[in-house]
């Protein structure tokens, strides 16, 4: 067992993947000598060379577009989008090319590309650095979308994402990069890449979330427990595909579901979860599925982000509303 931060967990996971398969290459802006603006790729260029840890020009469409070509040649590119808001210049390559090339080729082509995106707010950044854009990619068939939330998942999920032959959008919770946790680096992953995880067991309400909000949800569950309310926290981990079986089992036990995420609620992941759970668990539900998310606004200036982001109190308020039915 070692104690790692999320950033270090991803770094070690990347290293393991690169050692295991020399076709794995990293691409991105400032990922070489600097080690990335969050230092997630720290030291990798030194050990694997400039041909495998590629400092790219400052052009995101170019990163993804050339990764497509490298994948067609048999490589397994792992692309870093420096910040969530910088993925938009690459949007066309991701949704029109990466997502569709396998179908377009009637299965002749595989594109094992991982697109790493540090996601979400809460770091006091200027605009375009705090976006939660997972719904765009989860909505696009042909892509897989996952979000890690702790060091163990960071370490294992990045390796699993690299191993899969499908393109994966890999979200990293940037405000949690320095959260620490125990990781058994020599063991085996406890869950598949697309499995949801019951992060805390409870009886009265299920609280479903992913990425940076998992910690908020766990803190909310702790606070609620002190008031005698038992919250089950489900970390969805994979946003496409969604592990509805794990979530439905939890909801059938608790009878209530609150979904929380940083992204705007309108047409966000919570909408899909709510619709699906309503269909599956209608007769088990004691209350409508509620959402606690970001507001339907452009991400606000950082002095207002604490009001925008769901915090402990807003999540608990959602739980109370669910329990009030």
């Amino acid at each position, binding site marked *: 067992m070692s104690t790692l931060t999320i950033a270090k967990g991803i770094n070690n996971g990347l290293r393991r993947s690169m050692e295991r398969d020399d076709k794995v290459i990293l691409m991105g802006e400032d990922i070489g000598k600097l080690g990335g603006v969050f230092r997630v790729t720290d030291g990798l260029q030194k050990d694997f060379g400039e041909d495998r840890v590629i400092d790219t020009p400052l*052009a995101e469409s170019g990163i993804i577009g050339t990764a497509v070509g490298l994948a067609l040649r048999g490589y397994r590119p792992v692309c870093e989008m420096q910040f969530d808001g910088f993925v938009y210049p690459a949007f066309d390559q991701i949704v029109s090319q990466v997502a569709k090339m396998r179908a377009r080729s009637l299965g002749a082509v595989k594109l094992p590309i991982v697109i790493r995106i540090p996601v979400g707010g809460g770091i006091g950044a200027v605009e375009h650095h705090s976006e939660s854009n997972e719904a765009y990619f989860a909505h696009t068939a042909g892509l897989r979308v996952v979000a890690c939330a702790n060091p163990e998942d960071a370490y294992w999920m990045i390796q699993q994402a690299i191993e899969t032959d499908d393109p994966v959008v890999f979200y990293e919770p940037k405000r949690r990069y320095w959260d620490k946790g125990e990781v058994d680096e020599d063991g085996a992953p406890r869950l598949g890449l697309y499995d949801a995880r019951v992060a805390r067991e409870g009886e009265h309400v299920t609280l479903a979330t992913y990425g940076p909000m998992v910690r908020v949800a766990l803190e909310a569950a702790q606070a609620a427990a002190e008031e005698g309310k038992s919250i089950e926290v489900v970390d969805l981990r994979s946003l496409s595909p969604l592990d509805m079986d794990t979530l439905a089992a939890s909801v059938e036990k608790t009878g209530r579901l609150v979904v929380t995420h940083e992204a705007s609620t309108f047409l966000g992941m919570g909408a899909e979860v709510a619709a699906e759970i309503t269909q599956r668990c209608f007769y088990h539900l004691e209350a409508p599925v509620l959402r606690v998310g970001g507001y339907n606004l452009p991400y606000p200036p950082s002095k207002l982000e604490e009001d925008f982001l769901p915090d402990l109190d807003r999540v608990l308020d959602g739980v109370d509303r669910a329990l009030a039915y």
Partner: protein
Amino acid sequence: MSDIDVASSAGAEGTEHIDEAAVAALTAPVPETIGDGGPELVQLLTPEGERVDHPDYSAYVADLDADDLRGFYRDLVLVRRVDAEATALQRQGELGIWASLLGQEAAQVGSGRALRPQDYAFPTYREHGVAWCRGVNPLNLLGLFRGVNHGGWDPDEKNFHLYTIVIGAQTLHATGYAMGIQRDGAVGTGDADRDAAVVAYFGDGATSQGDVNEAFVYAAVNNAPVVFFCQNNQWAISEPNDRQTRIPLYQRARGFGFPGVRVDGNDVLAVYAVTKAAMDAARSGQGPMLIEAFTYRMGAHTTSDDPTKYRVSAEVEVWKHRDPIARLKAYLTAHAMADTEFFDAVDREADELAATVREGCLSMPDPEPLSMFDHIYVEKHPVVEAERAEFAAYHASFEGGH
């Protein structure tokens, strides 16, 4: 009925409705911007079919014998015939749309023939002639336009990638593939069977796209073995070159740090020579190059547009005089490298090929409905699988399960 028909049939009281602009367009002189390619245009065969020498490029065609030249001619005629047949099929409702290559045969055959088997081509959606040179069955090209698939071939079989419709997106794929060739150590080894390069096709309109400019940057800084082959056919749907650029396109390369050359795109020998030189250089490790094949799209952008609305007929007449097939035929005839018997035989072969394409197109089966759920992911995806099952059950619920 055109605007002019409307005006002339409107009678005396309708004369105020004459579309003077349309009349003027039809009778206007050729715009100066079209030009003849300028003094830097590489040409080895004039529009009259006369061989001219070029200090840099004549050497690249020196080893071509009469058989090779007849082969070029055959390719030009066959791809034009396939293209004409596909256009006819579209007009008869058998294809949803078709992007004709009429006028660009030499640019495609010349460059396509300059490739080696291990090279890789990334086309747009108009490279029917390049596909032909790579050995892709013309029938395969029709699936996309008929709507039965999005591309009916395995790109790795002939090293010819699928057609890409989003303008310029494939130039980045080509550059990335070239970066992969570098990492595989298949550049500059001196082994003619191993060293490889990539060619990326795009049009003049694509040079305005961000992706093409990003591809230039990535190729340059990586010294990637990729040749950018721009078929400047003068029109991006209805927009002429002067809506895309203020300088000749081949000169753009200099700003990115690699050479650019403008070749007569209707001269199959010159295109072959220039492409061969560029591919040789790329394979040997000298990095990227931009080729601007100065040519002309004789027809519409696709069967959906009407070029008489945006360009003058005098311009088309000028380019008819530069026809790539006529000039090679004149050269072969003048030098007794081919006779009527040969030309007739090629025409017969073209007709037979067209008949095969037609028959193949008409007998192309519609895809099985459930097949739309195939090949979305490598690993099974629960949503796709659930929807496949739901659709299958729904489909089977009809009488006869059609």
